[in-house]
């Protein structure tokens, strides 16, 4: 009787320690579902979904507080992937949040820029280089095309330019050919 009690208590203590140790050692910082959703989102950080960035939107989706069709840059394919991940029906993009556009980058008209730094503060990925009263410029490679720099500009010197097709980003088109009528 006593042995059994001791054995059980000992076991309980030991397992408790193992569990406690692994809870600390193998702690998962974030909700893994949030990370999976975040991996699908395009990371434009544009806020068109109504959340301040892709991660907060992913968190809201994971918590069931947001729909999966609020991300225009992700487009239909993003919605399809989210639906697949979450095991829900795909639905068309909610037009309230905007329409998908061709991928663009912001361009600053350097003759007009007055160096106010407002766009630098607005850029979610620090893709604008410049200092107060000095001309600013966009690091095109890092620009996600979120358009967040456009409204703050007091002199309207920022415009969006769609990325042109060149040899580096050219893709073979879907084959189109005539079928023989039978």
């Amino acid at each position, binding site marked *: 009787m006593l042995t059994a009690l001791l054995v059980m208590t000992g076991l309980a203590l030991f397992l408790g320690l193992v569990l406690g140790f692994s809870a600390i050692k193998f702690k998962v910082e974030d909700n893994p579902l949030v990370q999976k959703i*975040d991996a699908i989102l*395009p990371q434009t950080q544009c806020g068109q979904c109504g959340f301040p960035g*892709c991660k907060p939107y992913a968190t809201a989706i994971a918590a069931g507080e947001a729909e999966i069709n609020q991300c225009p840059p992700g487009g239909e394919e993003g919605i399809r992937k989210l639906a697949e991940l979450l095991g829900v029906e795909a639905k068309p993009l909610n037009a309230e949040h905007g329409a998908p556009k061709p991928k663009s980058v912001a361009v600053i008209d350097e003759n007009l820029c007055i160096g106010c730094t407002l766009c630098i503060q607005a850029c979610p990925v620090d*893709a604008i280089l410049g200092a107060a009263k000095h001309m600013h410029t966009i690091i095109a490679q890092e620009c996600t095309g979120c358009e967040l720099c456009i409204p703050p500009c007091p002199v309207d010197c920022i415009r969006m330019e769609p990325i042109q*097709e060149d040899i580096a*980003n*050219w893709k*073979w*088109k879907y084959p189109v050919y005539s079928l*023989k009528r039978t």
Partner: protein
Amino acid sequence: MRQLHKFHGGVHPPQHKQESTARPIAAAPLPTRLVVPLHQHIGNRAKPLVQVGDTVLKGQMIGQADGYVSCAVHAPTSGVVTAIEMASVPHPSGLPDLCITIEPDGAERWIARVPLDYQTMNPSELRNRLRDLGIAGLGGAVFPSHAKLNPGKQPKVPTLILNGAECEPWITCDDRLMREHAAEIVAGAKIMRHMLGSDQVLIGIEDNKPEAIAAMRAACADTGFEVIAVPTIYPGGGAKQLTKVLLGKEPPAGGRSTDIGVQVFNVATGYSLARAVLHGEPLISRIVTVTGNVERPQNFEALLGTPAKELVALAGAPRSDTQGYIMGGPMMGFTLPSAQAPVVKATNCLIASSPALFPPAPPALPCIRCTQCAQACPVGLQPQDLYWFARGREFGKAQEYDLFDCIECGCCDYVCPSHIPLVHYYRFAKSEIWAREREKNQADVARERHEFREHRLEREKKERADKLAAKTQGPKTPASGDTDAKQAAIQAAIERAKLKRAGVVPQNVENLPAERLKEIEEIEARRTQLKQAMEKQDETRPD
């Protein structure tokens, strides 16, 4: 006698090689202008080194390699740079790319050509020199050769294969090169063997080129290199197919030849390597087969940048039924977007096409799952499955079925009884997958940058709050009237500055030799003198 092996599938299209092998290689005359694209190789585009109006010498570097997988571009002749702009290049997209246009002056003035002493040179230095000499694979893929001439982590690459199979119909540039320049090719192979530390060197040539085989055998006498006649079957000149035929082994799916200790180079690459190392000549010309719907099909040694139209005109006046020019062979080549597109490092063949020679593909029929494509596929893939996945945009599935092992040889297209453009589907699927990969990488960078920005904003906020807290809790200045407080603050600042000035002492003087210490002492003495003088001046200055 070496035991040869077989690879799966393959086809026997009509060869059309006799047309252009009858005549020897002719040097193409200087064209009216040369349009040299800066991106002629796999990897990063070369960076232009010249400006419009510059005079350049023959062989002068005009584009610098950008990164490791890239190679330099050179002026093919001496002349004046007249433009650096987007111009038509040989690319299936038909899109323009950055080119340097040179107006030849006809003098053909060379740069100083310095041969490389490859046997004593540091291997890494030698590879850098080859990159600067613009050496890239001339078999068609134009991969920078210096990157392949690197045994990497292994001490050596045991087997070096020189590929003279030239399996595509119509093309004969390697055949003629082997017949006429066998010695230089063998010299190039020796350099490759030295760089890779190879034990055996095999030269594979299809048995439809007996003259080339004989010439190479003669040149290889007492070198230990083995010239092997391989059966003529398309695509027997694919690097992996030739390896399989010669050695009976193939690299693992998604792997490289070096994974099984083999490196494969085209014979023309060997030739240009020998010219570069032994004569200091950068890659500025190559042998191009001009054939098809022309009067006198022939091979020409053409300067890179020669407009296709001018080169084709050397084989006779253009015929009226010529509908375009195919670069490469009919199996893997593509129609040039413009007849002005220049000869580049990848241009092994220009075929003038006519409806009689290349009738348009008949209308396609639905796939009947006959699996003839699977029987013809030299890689042993299931082309019909890949076709369904690409058609349905199921790219993940296509990748699972080893889409990226497809060499786009066109055997499946050739045998398809329904005339479905299968390779086009695979190219479409591959480029979609690459685009997705690029987008994903960009998204990862954006996520990282956004997270760092959030972190930075948080940190700045905290720093500001700390500063504010320190200010409000810090010692208050005596509140005996506004001006008094100001005076006191100024006085405090002066005191602080004085203290600081006095506190300047020489640092890091522990391990100095005696004479240096003495010097420092003298300097310090002057400094104190100066300080005293200044203080005196301060005191005597009237307020």
